């Protein structure tokens, strides 16, 4: 039972420390709030300012293009000449400038190519890439249709030469027909979303930061193993009839309990502050919290046990935690191709578990595998830590 007293003493000391509260609760809450703020609009892009540059002698073309694009709420369209347009992009006033080639008409009628130029602001790469992608899509569609149109023209012409009247009539018909036909193409694609729940950036980052910051605060708690040694209280403990296993168990329990408290508090806070819906199964959420705390405290204790001094714990621990957190997606979702590496980290599995609860509301079914993986990691790390600490 002495190990319980040791755990209680450790917890009392840690929870008194205002800095634990600051770093363990305030900081993740603040950062999650900032994330939410940053990504609050759906696509994140509320407005893309672009300039259209048309052929000098065909204003109506640029006007028409501008008019068409303005109908998109996303674009804030202006018309200008090329030099001014490029300058505006360079200054960052406009995200991109689209230049309609002078040779557009000749190209269309004569079958020569026409090159559109998109000037992009390298700093606004997201916005400008949206513009570019849109242009590419339009070009693709245009190419498909013009290829079709031209081919039909030529083929009919081969069979029997087209008169001027026929050409004219065919033009008009073609346009209408293609537009109509395109609405019901031979191959269509129907998209279905797997999840039915609203996703927000906050839903990703609340669990991500919970995991990340819990790792850090537990690291500094586990560090107390060395601090006690330096302060002499560990030596004193060893002169009492308390056995070493009790001391080790007490410290581990304290670290684990602190982890549980922190994770639960952060979950609660994010539910209250950011309206995150952690799913319809509170028991599953609690279970995930217990599991996450086990993994985090296992890692923290292992690092402290494997280090020789408190400073070493800080240094090695910080590097390990940072690298693992980045790789596991606690800072930002990692690209899919990186997944094999991500899967090696604790953060990845904790994130999976929470994600399944928040995004897919999958209850216990969704946390089964993450739980298994994390508990295995925790078990191994705790076991190794005990072996190391017992050798003292």
């Amino acid at each position, binding site marked *: 039972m002495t190990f319980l007293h040791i755990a209680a003493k450790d917890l009392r000391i840690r929870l008194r420390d205002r800095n634990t509260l600051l770093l363990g609760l305030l900081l993740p809450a603040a950062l999650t709030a900032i994330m939410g703020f940053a990504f609050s609009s759906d696509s994140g892009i509320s407005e893309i300012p672009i300039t259209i540059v048309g052929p000098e002698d065909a204003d109506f073309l640029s006007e028409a293009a501008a008019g068409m694009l303005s109908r998109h709420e996303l674009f804030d369209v202006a018309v200008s000449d090329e030099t001014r347009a490029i300058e505006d992009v360079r200054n960052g006033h406009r995200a991109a400038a689209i230049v309609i080639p002078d040779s557009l008409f000749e190209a269309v009628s004569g079958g020569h190519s026409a090159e559109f130029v998109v000037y992009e602001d390298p700093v606004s790469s997201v916005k400008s890439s949206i513009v570019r992608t849109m242009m590419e899509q339009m070009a693709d569609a245009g190419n498909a249709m013009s*290829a079709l149109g031209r*081919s039909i023209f030529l083929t009919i012409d081969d069979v029997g030469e087209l008169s001027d009247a026929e050409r004219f009539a065919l033009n008009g018909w073609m346009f209408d027909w293609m537009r109509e036909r395109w609405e019901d193409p031979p*191959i269509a694609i129907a998209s*279905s979303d797997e999840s039915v729940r609203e996703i927000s950036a906050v839903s990703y980052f609340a669990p991500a930061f919970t995991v990340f910051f819990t790792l850090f605060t537990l690291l500094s708690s586990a560090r107390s193993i060395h601090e006690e040694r330096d302060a002499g209280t560990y030596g004193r403990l060893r002169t009492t009839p308390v056995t070493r296993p009790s001391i080790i168990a007490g410290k581990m329990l304290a670290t684990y309990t602190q982890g549980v408290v922190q994770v639960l508090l952060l979950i609660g806070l994010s539910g209250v502050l950011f309206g995150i819906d952690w799913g319809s199964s509170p028991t599953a959420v609690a279970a995930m919290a217990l599991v996450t705390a086990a993994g985090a405290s296992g890692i923290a204790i292992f690092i402290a046990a494997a280090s020789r001094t408190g400073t070493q714990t800080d240094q090695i621990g910080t590097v390990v935690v940072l690298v693992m957190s980045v790789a596991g997606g606690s800072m930002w979702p990692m690209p899919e*191709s990186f997944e094999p590496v991500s899967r090696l980290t604790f953060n990845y599995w904790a994130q999976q578990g929470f994600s399944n609860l928040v995004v897919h509301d999958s209850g216990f079914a969704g946390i089964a595998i993450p739980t298994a993986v994390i508990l295995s990691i925790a078990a191994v790390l705790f076991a190794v830590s005990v072996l190391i600490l017992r050798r003292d």
Partner: protein
Amino acid sequence: MRTIWQIALHNLRLIASDRAAMFWLIVMPIVFTAAMGFALRGGGGSSGDVRYALTVVNMDEGPRGQELLTAIESDDEIDLLTLPAPADSAANASPPTIADAEATARELVRSGNRSSVLIIPTDFTERLEAGTGATLAFVRNPDRTNPLVTRQAVERVIARRNVEAIAVEGVLEAYETLRGKPDPMTSVRLAAGLGTRVMDAMEKPLFTVRSERVGRPEAVMPQMGFTHSSPAMALMFVLLNGLMLSSVLVSERRDRTLIRLMSAPVRRGEIIAANLLWRFLIGFCQMWVLILFGRFVFGVDWGDGAVALLLVSVSYVGAVAGLSVLIGSLSRTAKQAESLSLLLALTMCALGGLWWPLEITPKTYQLVGHLIPTGWAMDAMNNLLSRGYSLWLVLPQVLVLAGFALAFGIASTIAFRYE
């Protein structure tokens, strides 16, 4: 002046002899930048190399499905992962339906293994050849960006197929509009004449799009994710370490060495100046070590405005030093100073656009980002590196940063105390 320098030098010596401090100042940032760089490069970080994984389940009994796949596979951006069609359920001998496939796909996406799954139905070829139209199923995970790209790629391929498919129908209907329904012989001639015309015409696209980056086209500033761009990391680590040094001031108060200094013939202003100076020197050296490391080891292109970069770094580090002394003056314990520093540093990084580009954030957010030094510093970096600005055009940011430095310096002077 000499006294200021002596005090500053003394503190620098203390820091230099503290191996832990050197670790945080030099080793950690480099290790972290390297780790980030490898992580994201390995995952295809630089914008040219990103590939998006698309899982395909081809249930088509005919050849058209495979043709479609081959076409998708040739897209450089797409990494095709094929899954075998779901096995026949043991209970009945009936072939798996698209519903089974969709169920499997849903499971895959739900478990987070895949972001986008394309299912080609069993009667794909049959329906196309019968002219009744076929629908592909696309199951996606809506909280990933992957499906946006993969879907677009698939649509591109489908568009071409569709054009080919409707070509014959089109030419026949066109002919009918002009000259009445063609007789069988003419129909054959039309179809044959069409031949590969459409495909050939598609090979010579009429409309092309060329994109050009204005400024320094050779600058690569990948902005995705927890940015691995060297400039943002340099700014971040200088800020983080610089602010953490605030605790040294608190320790000096606690150890009463500061008050002892007061009993020596040293002016208060000199002590404050020294505190600002040594922090500035450390931050400045750290910044340039990271800049040079980025340049020569990671090949980051910092542009050719060395003087401009120098001015930006001087004004930024000055602001950081001022804030560090301010925090040290206001905090009561060393731990408090460190916690406050961490809180401020991380939030300033997030708000200033060091972790993701400000362009994707709401206007208010961008405004807040410019109430703090980091927003301006990042602007300056962007201007220098991506836009290729000259010194004059970066001057506004430099002046604002210098203003921050001045403001923090004055505030810390007012707040400075000995015990």
